[in-house]
C-alpha cells in the first residue's frame, strides 16, 4: 500500500491547496476577478469633486498613485482618529477574542480568513498600531512591529485594504456578537474614505452618486422619464384593477412628501412594489382624503453617499429635506429602502438635522404619532401601513395572496440599523395566509446580509455576491424545502435588485417581492373589477387560468 499516492499528492501537477497560512500578514494579496467591482470612471470622480480622478486598473501593478500617497493616508487617518471618537476606540479596544470571526457572511461564503471581521479591521488597525501607538512606534523601529500586529503602510497593504474593504457590505452583523460592540462597518467606512483620498473608488458607487448629484437619482433618469414611468404604472394598474389611480407630482402644500429608492420606479421586481404604493395611496385618498405627493427632483431615497464618505452622504441626504422645504409639506413618508433608513436613523440628526421646519409626523388617518420619527420627521412606510392595518383602516382580501408561501428577509439596515423588525412581519401576516420564518439565527438582529449591499451590487463581482449571499440563500432553501416557500419578501430596493440573482443561483424556485406588492394584491380598491391577476399579471388562485387550484 505504501506506494499509493497520499491525498495531497493525488494531483501532483495541480496544487489543490491554498498556501499555508503562516500568519495573516504573510498571506500575499491575490486580487481575483469576480471578487471586485471595476475602478471608477474618472468623470464621475471629478463630478463628485473627489481627488485624483484617473483611469486605473486593480489588476495592474501600478495603480497610478500620487507620489506622496503614504503621507496622504497617514494624515487622513490622523484626522479621522481625532474626529471620530468611536473609530479611535474601535482601534484600541479589540481584544481579538474572535467572537466576531465566524459571523460575517463573506467569511462563511468564501472561506477567506481575511473576511473575518476581526482580520478585516486588523488590516487597518495594524497600520494604526505602527503609526500612532507608542509601543508600535518603538517596536517597529527595532524591527519587531509584526509581533504586536503592527506593520508599515506599503503598496501591498493598500491593495489589501482596497480589496477587502470592498468585500464588506457594512452590514454590522459582526457587531451584534462583539462583547465590546465594535462595529467593523464603521471601520470599513473609514477605510473606504481613506481610499477615496487617493481616488481609489469603485464605479458602481461613484457613478450612481454622480448621477444623484446631476439628476437626482442613481440611474441618472431625468424628471420627465420618472413621471412617464409612474404614468405607465397607472395604465398597468388600471388594466389589472379597472381603477385609474392619479398620483400627484411636486405638489406644493401637499400634506406629505413620499420618497422611495429609484430602483422601485425603474427596476423589476421593485416596480411592482412601486405600483403597490400607488394603489395604497389611491385607496387612502379615496377613503380618507390622504394628500401625498411624489417629487421628480428628490427622486431617490437610496444614499450611495453612505458608501463613499461622510460628506457625500450628508450632501445626498440634504436633497430630500430641501425638497420637503420647497414643497412645504408637513413630513416625509419613506419607501422600502435599506441604507436610506440607516442614514436617517443613525446620521441624519447630527448631519443635516434636526429638520425643525417640518412637523412631528402624525398619521392623518389614524392620528398615531410616530414617536421614533419625532426628530427626523421621516416615517417608514412599513410602520405607516402596519398602523393602518392595526386600526382596521384597510379593506383586504387576503386570499389573493394564497398562491404565495412567503418568508421575510430582514434587510440589514432597517433591521440592525433602525430596529424595524416587527412592523413588516405584522403587515405580511395580515395580507398573506402563508408565512414562514427562516431559522432564528438568520433573521431579525442576526439576519444574514444579501451579500450585495454597500455598493457591491454590480455585475462584475458576481462570484463575491454569490459567495457572500450563500448564508442567506441557505436559510431560504431550508424554508423552501420544509414549507414550500416560493416568495422572499423584503423592505429594501437593493435586496429587490440583488436577491433575484441570488435566488436564481441557489434556490431558483423562489421569487422576490417587496412588502407593498403583497399589500396591494390584497387591498380592495373602491370600485374595482374582480381581479383575475396579481400585479405581475399572474393568474390569481381560484380564477379560470389558475391551473393549480
Amino acid at each position, binding site marked *: 500500500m505504501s506506494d499509493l499516492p497520499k491525498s*495531497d499528492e493525488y494531483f501532483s501537477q495541480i496544487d489543490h491547496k491554498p498556501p499555508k497560512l503562516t500568519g495573516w500578514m504573510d498571506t500575499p494579496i491575490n486580487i481575483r476577478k469576480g471578487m471586485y467591482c471595476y475602478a471608477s470612471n474618472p468623470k464621475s470622480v471629478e463630478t463628485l469633486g473627489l481627488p485624483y480622478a484617473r483611469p486605473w486598473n486593480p489588476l495592474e501593478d501600478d495603480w497610478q498613485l500620487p507620489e506622496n500617497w503614504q503621507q496622504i493616508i497617514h494624515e487622513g487617518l490622523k484626522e479621522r482618529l481625532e474626529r471620530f471618537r468611536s473609530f479611535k476606540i474601535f482601534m484600541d479596544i479589540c481584544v481579538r477574542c474572535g467572537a466576531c470571526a465566524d459571523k460575517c457572511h463573506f467569511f462563511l461564503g468564501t472561506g477567506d480568513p481575511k473576511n473575518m471581521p476581526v482580520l478585516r479591521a486588523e488590516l487597518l488597525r495594524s497600520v494604526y498600531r505602527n503609526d500612532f501607538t507608542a509601543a508600535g512606534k518603538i517596536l517597529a523601529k527595532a524591527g519587531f512591529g509584526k509581533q504586536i500586529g503592527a506593520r508599515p503602510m506599503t503598496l501591498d497593504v493598500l491593495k489589501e485594504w482596497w480589496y477587502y474593504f470592498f468585500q464588506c457590505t457594512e452590514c454590522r452583523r459582526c457587531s451584534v456578537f462583539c462583547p465590546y460592540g465594535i462595529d467593523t462597518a464603521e471601520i470599513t467606512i473609514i477605510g473606504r474614505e481613506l481610499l477615496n483620498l487617493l481616488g481609489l473608488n469603485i464605479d458602481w458607487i461613484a457613478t450612481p452618486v454622480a448621477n444623484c448629484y446631476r439628476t437626482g437619482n442613481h440611474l441618472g433618469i431625468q424628471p420627465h422619464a420618472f413621471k412617464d414611468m409612474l404614468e405607465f404604472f397607472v395604465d398597468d394598474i388600471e388594466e389589472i384593477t379597472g381603477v385609474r389611480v392619479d398620483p400627484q407630482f411636486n405638489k406644493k402644500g401637499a400634506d406629505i412628501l413620499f420618497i422611495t429608492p429609484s430602483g422601485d420606479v425603474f427596476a423589476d421586481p421593485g*416596480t411592482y412594489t412601486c405600483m403597490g404604493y400607488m394603489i395604497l395611496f389611491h385607496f387612502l385618498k379615496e377613503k380618507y382624503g390622504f394628500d401625498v405627493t411624489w417629487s421628480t427632483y428628490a427622486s431617490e431615497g437610496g444614499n450611495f453617499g453612505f458608501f463613499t464618505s461622510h460628506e457625500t452622504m450628508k450632501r445626498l441626504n440634504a436633497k430630500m429635506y430641501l425638497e420637503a422645504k420647497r414643497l412645504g409639506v408637513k413630513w416625509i413618508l419613506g419607501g422600502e429602502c435599506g441604507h436610506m433608513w440607516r442614514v436617517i436613523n443613525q446620521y441624519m440628526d447630527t448631519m443635516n438635522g434636526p429638520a425643525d421646519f417640518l412637523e412631528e409626523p402624525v398619521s392623518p388617518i389614524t392620528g398615531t404619532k410616530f414617536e421614533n420619527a419625532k426628530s427626523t420627521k421621516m416615517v417608514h412606510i412599513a410602520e405607516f401601513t402596519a398602523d393602518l392595518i392595526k386600526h382596521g383602516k384597510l379593506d383586504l382580501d387576503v386570499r389573493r395572496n394564497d398562491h404565495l408561501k412567503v418568508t421575510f428577509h430582514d434587510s440589514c439596515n432597517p433591521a440592525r440599523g433602525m430596529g424595524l423588525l416587527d412592523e413588516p412581519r405584522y403587515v405580511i401576516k395580515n395580507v398573506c395566509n402563508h408565512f414562514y420564518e427562516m431559522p432564528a439565527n438568520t433573521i431579525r438582529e442576526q439576519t444574514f446580509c444579501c451579500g450585495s449591499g454597500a455598493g457591491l451590487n454590480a*455585475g462584475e463581482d458576481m462570484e463575491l455576491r454569490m459567495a457572500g449571499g*450563500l448564508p442567506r440563500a441557505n436559510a431560504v432553501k431550508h424554508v423552501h424545502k420544509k414549507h414550500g416557500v416560493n416568495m422572499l419578501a423584503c423592505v429594501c430596493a437593493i435586496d429587490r435588485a440583488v436577491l433575484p*440573482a441570488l435566488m436564481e443561483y441557489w434556490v431558483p424556485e423562489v421569487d422576490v417581492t417587496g412588502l407593498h406588492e403583497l399589500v396591494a394584491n390584497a387591498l380592495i380598491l373602491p370600485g374595482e373589477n374582480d381581479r383575475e391577476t396579481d400585479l405581475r399579471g399572474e393568474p390569481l388562485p381560484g380564477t379560470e387560468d389558475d391551473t393549480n387550484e
Partner: protein
Amino acid sequence: MSQKNLALFLEKRKSAVVSKWFDEVAASYAPDAGQFLKKQQDPFSNPVGMSFRDGLSGLFDQVVHGIDREGALPFLDPLIRIRAVQAFTPSQAIAFIFSLKTVLRRNFGKEIYAQQLQEALVELESRIDTLGFLAFDLFMECREKIYQLKANTERNTIYRAFARAGLIKEDPEN
C-alpha cells in the same frame, strides 16, 4: 458477490469514511477556515461545512450502492455550486471527489485486500470517476450561470421595466 461484501464492509465504516473525506475537503481551505468548517455544527451558522457533511454522506451511499444521475444530483449539486464561486481553479474545485479514493485505500486498503475485495474496490473506484464526470458537468453549468447572471443582472431588470413601459430610447450621451 464481492461487490455486496465490499458494500457491507464500507457501510459499517460509513461515519469514519465520511468524516475522513470531510477532512480532505476542509484541508482545501485555509487552516483557520478549515478548522471552523469542522467545528461549527449548526447548519445555518456554517452553511458550507454542513452542506458538505450532508452531501458527502449522500454521495458515499451512491458510490457504495451504485450511481445514478438523478440520485446523485441532490447531493452533488449543492457542493459544486459552492465550490464554483470560491477561489478555486476548476480542477481544485472538483478534486475533493477523487480524494475519496485515497481515503479508502489509505485507511482501509489493507483490510480490503485481506478480504480479497480489491476487484470490487476497483469497480467502486470507477463510480468515483463517474461522480467526477458529473461534478465537471455541474461545475460548468454553475460557471455558465454565473456568466449569465453577470451579463444580465441590473441592466436586464432595468431594461425589462423600461421596455414594458415603452421607454427604451438610446441616450446619445452615454
